[in-house]
């Protein structure tokens, strides 16, 4: 702890000398419009029977708090959650109502049941439904995060829960893998692997545990992003002699070329939420920058203006693009709405590298890889100003996060 404080003191001193803007995480306390929290009282949600009821209630409380939208209180609150979570003979039965103060009718009254061993998952679902009912955006407690973990020199695909628990190793190939992304149904993951010696694109069906190599042209096959309707993918191929973007249907047939830049490399495509446009990286200007192109091809428009490198764009559900921008020698996460004309917003400030942003579906949180002293760790960042949450704690490097769409 003392060592940590010393490091921080040295950093503050170094930054003061260099004049680089710097704030520690704890000092960021910006309250933005829409970020005011709603007081919620869950004391009326009573656990009953065996343990799972208490697990359900504790998970629900923690999910509501971490959603960022609520303040939990034991006092009179504008929102009240009431009901029973009863664990009986291996089954968990939950009845839950959500009441607004001063309104006679329930906002909702719902019943659920699950195996007692699924108490946490059920609590995530109920918390997400409460967030959606109150704020009109989906909650993220049920979100899963795909990532690459590099442990002991091996790189494999992993999945964890929204707040870092339940880490599961999906592949154990030993071959280099990168760039995971989700199919819209949340049942499969697309990623790039050197499983057969060259960078090819694979699909893993999480329930059947089936892995299919779906694209494997000579040269480079990478960066696949599945369209919001699940029918197409956009990806980077070098089969025609140069890394370019292509759109093809998800089975790997009917290939259409999107870009024609013989003197530039393209990378990192990401679909717009309506599936009509694609944001991607190209170094046609001499450094990697962000461009937007129509799904049908045609002229591309550069959208990044500041920073000598802008990479790893992720087009979020509300139309804003998160990306990593090199500023004063470090990569920072920035957010840009290409259609609003508003200036971009830099949402990280620490003097370390912040890379690979992935929007959570609540349009508020971003998962990213934070690299300090050559170690990468995943963090859940709140664009509305709540403190970050560290997601990975195990030894190794953790990067390229992708939030599930469901």
């Amino acid at each position, binding site marked *: 702890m003392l060592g940590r404080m010393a490091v921080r003191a040295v950093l503050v001193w170094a930054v003061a000398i260099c004049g680089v803007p710097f704030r520690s995480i704890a000092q960021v306390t910006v309250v933005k419009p829409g970020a005011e929290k709603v007081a919620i009282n869950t004391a009326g949600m009573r656990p009953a029977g065996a343990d799972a009821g208490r697990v359900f209630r504790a998970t629900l409380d923690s999910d509501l708090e971490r959603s960022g939208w609520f303040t939990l209180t034991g006092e009179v609150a504008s929102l009240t959650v009431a009901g029973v979570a009863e664990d009986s003979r291996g089954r968990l039965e939950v009845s839950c109502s959500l009441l607004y103060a001063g309104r006679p009718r329930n906002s909702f009254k719902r019943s659920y049941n699950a195996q007692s061993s699924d108490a946490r998952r059920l609590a995530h679902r109920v918390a997400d439904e409460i967030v959606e009912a109150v704020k009109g955006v989906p909650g993220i407690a049920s979100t899963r995060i795909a990532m690459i973990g590099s442990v002991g020199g091996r790189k494999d695909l992993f999945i964890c829960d929204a707040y870092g628990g339940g880490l599961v190793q999906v592949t154990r190939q030993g071959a280099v893998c990168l760039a995971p992304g989700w199919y819209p149904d949340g049942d499969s993951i697309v990623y790039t692997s050197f499983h057969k010696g060259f960078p090819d694109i694979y699909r893993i069906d999480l329930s059947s545990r*089936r892995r299919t190599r779906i694209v494997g042209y000579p040269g480079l096959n990478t960066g696949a992003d599945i369209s919001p309707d699940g029918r197409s993918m956009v990806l980077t191929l070098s089969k025609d002699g140069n890394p370019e973007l292509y759109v093809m249907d998800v089975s790997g047939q009917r290939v259409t070329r999107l870009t024609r830049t013989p003197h530039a490399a393209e*990378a990192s495509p990401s679909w717009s939420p309506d599936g009509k446009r694609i944001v991607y990286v190209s170094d046609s200007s001499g450094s990697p920058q962000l461009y937007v192109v129509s799904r049908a091809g045609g002229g591309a428009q550069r959208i990044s203006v500041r920073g000598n490198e802008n990479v790893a764009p992720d087009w979020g559900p509300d139309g804003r693009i998160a990306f990593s921008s090199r500023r004063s020698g470090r990569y920072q996460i920035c957010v840009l709405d290409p259609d609003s004309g508003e200036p971009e917003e830099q949402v990280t400030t620490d003097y370390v590298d912040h890379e690979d942003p992935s929007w959570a579906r609540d349009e508020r949180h971003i998962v990213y890889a934070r690299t300090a002293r050559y170690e990468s760790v995943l963090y859940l960042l709140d664009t509305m100003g709540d403190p970050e949450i560290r997601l990975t704690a195990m030894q190794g490097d953790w990067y390229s996060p992708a939030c599930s769409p469901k």
Partner: protein
Amino acid sequence: MLSRTFYKVVIVCCLCSLVGTGCFWRRGGKGRGAGGDFSDSGEILDIDRVGGDNPLGPRFADGVPVDEQFQNVLFAYDSFSITDSEISKVETVGDYMTRNQDVRLIAEGHCDERGSREYNLSLGEHRALAVRAYLVGLGVDGARIQTRSYGEEQPLDPGHDESAWRLNRRVEFALFR
């Protein structure tokens, strides 16, 4: 061929010792994860759905490696241009390929660790393709040259400074017969 088998034996021995000491992931085992346990996902069934035309020619990853050392072609940061000082290295390879018509080659593109992994994969491919294009210009049949980008995934020098990065921004030559 002998050295290849030797390496395989060494690798298998290393893996066995890892399993023995418990460092290796245990199947069905549990470990301490970030805020929870992680469990093994079990085996994965493989299917191959890849076919179709191959404008760059079929891949040849399985040939017999040719024991011939060539100097790596080095590149500037974020660049795929072959600079004047590097051209002679490519020409040496071109001469060898012209004299040994039965040899095929994979140009392997690499980047330093800075920047996005996905962009680096494209940049590494662009470097390998630039070398391939130069060799084709020297008269080597393009069907004898494959490209493979490792991006920043396989640095030659594990250091984190310019002297390491300079060596890591490279194209390596892997030759097969």
